[in-house]
């Protein structure tokens, strides 16, 4: 069973192993299908129709399964690798360690947003983007440009304090923990981080930037924390909801797991600490 750690606490060896596994997955063709799958759901998840990966209750279990699939793909390359998470309430500047040349690489340059340092810089020859919104095939970032501040610890605590998982109409206008964490409502946690990073992270093809996985691993950790604080509460809705994944309904595209199956992750992975 794996332990998912804060990226700030990884050893140099652990960082290297994670980066190398990601690069190996990219090289063997296993990475890009994850980008395609994500965007496929981004463009088809709608507020007034079927919605699975985003703007709906299954945003959290869908991404939990999506991360598990990705983590298993990395472990097929190197069994020692677990997903790390990025606590953006703590590492909140463009010069934080996560953006080092030994890990995610840095901010994009001012002329065209191109990331020019670290293992995912286009010039390194290992990170060409193939699933794109536009003609640019290099990784881009504009840290802190689209929005100045990452969510704070107080912002995050205020969302963790919402005791109802989700609410009708089960979309981007819902009250509840899920939508406030996703960020269509309230202080805006998850969406804001995508905008803060900018570049591909702001697009439907956001997994093109490997920091996507570290961001979503933290979102998953926050859900886990919420579950721990609200033992009497569960995933909603429970049954009979059109266009939305109910507690015991299987989720596309895997059609093998339900939200209920994913509520307890302790048999598969744990987190190093609480929030």
């Amino acid at each position, binding site marked *: 069973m794996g332990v998912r750690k804060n990226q700030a606490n990884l050893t140099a060896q652990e960082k290297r192993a994670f980066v190398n596994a990601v690069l190996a997955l990219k090289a063997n063709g296993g990475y890009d299908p994850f980008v*395609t799958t994500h*965007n496929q759901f981004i*463009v*088809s998840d*709608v507020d007034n*129709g079927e919605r699975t990966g985003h703007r709906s209750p299954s945003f959290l279990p869908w991404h939990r399964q999506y991360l598990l699939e990705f983590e298993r793909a990395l472990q097929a390359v190197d069994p020692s690798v677990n997903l790390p998470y990025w606590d953006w309430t703590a590492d909140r500047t463009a010069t934080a360690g996560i953006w080092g040349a030994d890990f995610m690489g840095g901010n994009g340059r001012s002329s065209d947003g191109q990331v020019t340092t670290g293992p995912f810089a286009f010039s390194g020859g290992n990170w060409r983007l193939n699933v794109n919104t536009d003609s640019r095939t290099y990784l881009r970032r504009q840290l802190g440009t689209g929005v100045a501040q990452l969510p704070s610890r107080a912002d995050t605590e205020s969302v963790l304090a919402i005791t109802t998982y989700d609410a009708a109409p089960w979309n981007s206008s819902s009250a509840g923990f899920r939508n406030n964490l996703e960020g269509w409502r309230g202080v805006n946690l998850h*969406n804001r981080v995508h905008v803060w990073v900018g570049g591909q992270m702001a697009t439907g093809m956001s997994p093109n930037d490997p920091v996507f996985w570290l961001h979503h691993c933290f979102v998953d950790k926050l859900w886990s924390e919420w579950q721990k604080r609200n033992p009497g509460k569960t995933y909603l809705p429970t049954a009979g909801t059109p266009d939305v994944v109910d507690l015991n309904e299987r989720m596309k595209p895997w059609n093998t797991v339900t939200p209920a199956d994913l509520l307890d992750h302790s048999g598969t992975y744990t987190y190093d600490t609480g929030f």
Partner: protein
Amino acid sequence: MSEDTHATELTRRRMLQGAAAALTVATGTVVIGLAGPGGGAATAADPGASDSFDEVFQGRRIQGRPADGGSHHHGGGAGTGYEVRIDGDELHMMRNADGTWISVVNHYQTFATPRALARAAVNDLQGATLVPIVTA
């Protein structure tokens, strides 16, 4: 004032007079039509959704118009009812439940109108061209 400009002014004035005359006739006959849903009230209550635009923004041609939602395989499920193009290429977009808009280029950020969304995409593209979206 040059003679050309003067002539143009006269022509404009005549056209306006003609339009006013036509309007007078129209108001006399189809009063309900003018005050009904075709008027400005619907647009004011629903900003952006029923307006078209076609402009050059930072050297890029951006166009937006209400569109038949049936063009998407979700049969309007895409929730759009609107189409935006940048230099002729479609920008995938959708409408949120609260009436705001998002595009595939700025997916995690909402915009009040399709025009604002199109301009934001132009800013992000920095001259790059949109490519068709691969979903399988």
